[in-house]
C-alpha cells in the first residue's frame, strides 16, 4: 500500500504493508531509530511519537492509520544540531541516564508543553505516566520539564 505522511517536517511516501507497525516503518524503512521499542504492547512508552498533535505508542498503530498525518519523532526536536529547550533541560537537569526512555519522554513532554505552557509538577507526572523510566526515579525528568517550561516562556 502507498502511504504518505510528513515526518519531522519532511514529506515521505513509501510502499509498505498497511498493517506494519508505525514503529517498524520509522525504524526500518526510514532508519529513524531514535524511537525505541521497550515492550511492544503500549506499556512502556519508549516508542512514543506525536501524530497530528497527539502522543501515541507507535508500537500499537498500523501505518495505514497515519496516512496523510504529520508525525514528530525525537529526531525532529533539535534544529541544525542545536538542542531545543526541552532537550537542553534534560541534559542540564540529569533527565537522561541510560537514555532508552528519553526519546519517548521528550515526546510526551513536548506534547504536554504544546498544550500547557506552565504545567504543575502533578500535571507533568500525569503527562509522563505512560512512559516508564527505570533509572531516574522520575525526579530529574520532572525537574527538566519544569525548567524547559520556564525557558520557553522567556
Amino acid at each position, binding site marked *: 500500500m502507498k502511504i504518505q505522511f510528513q515526518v519531522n517536517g519532511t514529506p515521505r511516501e513509501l510502499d509498505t504493508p498497511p498493517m506494519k507497525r508505525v514503529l517498524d516503518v520509522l*525504524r526500518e524503512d526510514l532508519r529513524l531509530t531514535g524511537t525505541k521499542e521497550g515492550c511492544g504492547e503500549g506499556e512502556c512508552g519508549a516508542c512514543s511519537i506525536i501524530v497530528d498533535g497527539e502522543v501515541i505508542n507507535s508500537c500499537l498503530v498500523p501505518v495505514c492509520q497515519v496516512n496523510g498525518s504529520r508525525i514528530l519523532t525525537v529526531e525532529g526536536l*533539535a534544529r541544525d544540531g542545536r538542542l531545543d529547550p526541552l532537550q537542553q533541560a534534560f541534559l542540564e537537569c540529569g533527565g537522561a541516564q*541510560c537514555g532508552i526512555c528519553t526519546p519517548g519522554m521528550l515526546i510526551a513532554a513536548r506534547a504536554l508543553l504544546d498544550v500547557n505552557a506552565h504545567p504543575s509538577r502533578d500535571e507533568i507526572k500525569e503527562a509522563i505516566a505512560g512512559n516508564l523510566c*527505570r533509572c531516574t526515579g522520575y525526579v530529574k525528568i*520532572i525537574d527538566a520539564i519544569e525548567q524547559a517550561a520556564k525557558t520557553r516562556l522567556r
Partner: protein
Amino acid sequence: MAVGQNVLRKEGYEKLTGAARYIADYAIEGMLCGKTIRSTIARGRIKSIQFDSGYDWSRIVVADYRDIPGANYVALIETDQPLLAESEVRHAEEPVLLIAAESKHEAEEAARHIHIEYEESNPVLTIEESLRADEIIFGSDNVMKRYLIGRGDVDEGFAQADFIIEGEYRVPHQEQLYIEPQGVIAIPGDGEMTVMGSMQCPYYVHKALKQLLNLDDERAVVIQTTTGGGFGGKEEYPSMIASHAALLAHKARRPVKIIYDRAEDIAATTKRHPGIIRHRTGVTRDGRLTASEIDIVLDGGAYVTLTPVVLSRGAIHALGPYRCPNVRVTARAVATNTPPNGAFRGFGAPQVAFAYEMQMEKIAATLQIDPLELRRINMLREGDITATGQQLAWSVGSEDVLNAAVESSNFFEKRRSAREFNQAIEESLKQSPAQTENKRRGVGLSFFFHGAGFTGSGEAKMKAQAGIEVTAEGRARILSASTEIGQGTRTIFCQIVADEIGVDFNDVEIEEPDTSRVPDSGPTVASRTTMVVGRVVQLAAREVKEKLLCFAAERFGTSDIKIIEGWLIADEKRLARFEETARDYLAQHGELRVYARYAHPPTVEWDDETYSGDAYPVYSWGADVAEVEVDMDTYEVTVVKITTAQDIGRAIHPLLAAGQIEGGTLQAVGYGLLEELVWNRGRIVNNRLTNYIIPTSLDAPEMETVIVEKEYPHGPFGAKGVGELPMDGAAPAIAAAVFNATGAFVNEIPITPERLQRALEVRIVVID
C-alpha cells in the same frame, strides 16, 4: 576543577537527539535474525525433537549443543550451566535449540514447526521444597553454597540478654526491568568472532566467546553498544545470549542478531534471589544487642551463576550497620528448578536489609523503645567492629546520615502529625463513618550500609586495569572496560582525569569499551566503578602527568612545572599548552600510554578460609524516612515522600549521584510495594509490562536527597560507591511506616493489599 561540578553528561547529546545507537538500532548487511527455542517444562529429559517435514528448512539455520566447538557451559564461577541443554532440562525457559532466519517473522514461523517431547520429573520449585530434599536436584542436599560467619559466643550473648526476639522475613524475586531488552549481534570473521551488544561486562562475554569457539584473546572481540539500563541484569546474562548469537553466526557464516522481546526477557533471564531470613536477637532491657543469630536461605534457581557471591554479600551485610559482640550468621543458597537467579543492584544486600531493619522495628516495638533511639544505641561508628571482625577505620558516615535523614524529613514532627491525623480519623469514624475517608498515615525509617567494591579478596585477585593514552591531538584518552549504563561512568572518569592532570573536562576523551582496545577493568558491578576503577584511572593519569612533566622539565630547563587549566606553568608564567607538550612528547617518543592496576590500601586484609577480616575496604551509609498513607478499605499503600541521606564519600558529580540515589530508591519502592512475579509450574505467568508492575511517575513519591560526603582517603578524590546503596533502604522504611500507620507488621514484601490485610490480623506482643 571538574570534580564536584555538575558538568554535562559526556554522551548526553547523542542520547537526547536519538542519535545514540543501541544494539537494536544496528542493521548489518546479510544479517540473520536468531531465536532461542526454550524448554516449556521445569524439570525432565528431552525425549525427542521433531522438525515438521513439510516445512522448508533449507532457509533456516539450526544449532544445538553438538554444534559447539568448545565446551558447552556458560563461563562464570562454576561450569554447571549449559549454553544449550543436552538431554536434561533443569528449568523452564532453558535454551535447547537455536535457529536463525532472514527475518524475525520467519524465525518465529520456523519455531512453530519444532516440537520437543519431554519426559517430565517432579520439579523443586520453592526454597521450602528444596530444603525438604524429597527430590535431590543439586549435589547431595540441594545446597549450592554455604557460609558461616561467627564472632564472639552467641550462647553467652543470649545468656546476657533480657529478651530474645525472633523474626522471620521473606523477600521475593525481582526483575531488573531495564527498558532496553537484552540484545547482541555476532559477526563472524576469519577465525574470529566479534560480538557487539547491550552489556555491563565486556570481558565476561569475551571469556565466554573464547571458550565457546576455542579462540585466543585477540580473536574474540567484544564491543559494548549504548546500553539501555542494566541494574545487574546485564552482568552475566549477556554471556549466554552472546554465545548463542556467536554459535549461530559461526555456523551460518553470517552476522546474527538476537534481540529478546519483553516477554522472553522477563521469562528467561536472571532475577533477584528470593529469600527467607530468620533472626534471633538477644537484647538488654535498655536496647543493647548482646547476641544475634541469623539464618539466610536464598533461592539460587537451577544453576549456580553468581549465587555464591550474592550469598556472600548477603551474609556479610546480614547483621546490618550495628554493633553486636556475639554473632552467628549461617547462609545457604539452595537449588530449585526455576530460571537461575543472578545479579541485581544490591546483590544480596536488599534482601538482608529488609530483614535486619524489620527486626530492629520489632525489637523497638517489643521493648517500647523509640526506633530511632534503638538505632543510635547500636549503630556502628568509627573504630567499631563488624560481624566479620573488621574494625571500621575511616569514612564512617553512620551517625551523619541518620541525623540528616531525621532532620531533613522532620521525622518527629511528621510522626506527631500522622498520629494526630489518625486519631482524628478514628474519632470521625465513630461520629460519621460514612463521611470519613478511612485512611491512616505513618512515618518509618531505615538505616543501612553497603560495602563498596568486590567482597573479600575479590578486588585483590582481580587487580583491575585501566589506562590513559595520549591521542595524536595531544589529549588524554581513558582506556577502560567499565561500561556506561546510564550511571555516568564516562562523565565521572573524565572528571577524575581532568582534575588529576589539570586540563579541561571537555579536553578528556574516553575510548569505547571494546576488548581489542581497552584493558580488563573488571565488571561494571558492585558499586566499584567510581571507587575502584576510578582510582585506577586516576593513578594512570597521575603517571601520564609525571611523564609529561619530566619531559617538560628537560625541555624548559625547570622542574617546578605545574599543569593548571590546560597550561604548563612555571614561576606563574605559561610555558606551553598541555596538548602542545603532549604532541611534542609523541613526536619524540612515538607514543604515551600508561596502564595502572588496582591494589587495596595496605591495611585491608581478608581471610577466605575463616571468612573474616576486612570484607570491604570501606562502606557507604544510608538512612531513609518514608511517609505513607494507607487506605484501610482497600489496603493500598501510597508512599507520599521519601527523604534519604546517603554517605557516598566525595560526590564526583553531585547531580549524577543524586540521580543514582533517586532511581535506586524508586526501584526499592517497587521492591517493597509493587513488584511480584506469579509462577505456575516453574514458569512466570506475568512476564509482561501489563502485569509485572514497576513504578510509574504517578507511583513515585516526592523525594528529598541529602548527600553526605565523608571522604574515603583511598578513593579518587575521596569517593566511595553509590550504585547499590539506594536499593537497600526504601522497602524496610516503607514497611516501618505502614507499621507506624496501622500497627500491621508486614514481614514479607511486596506489601500487597492481601499481605497487609493478613498482617493486620497479627499484632506484636509488647513486653512490659
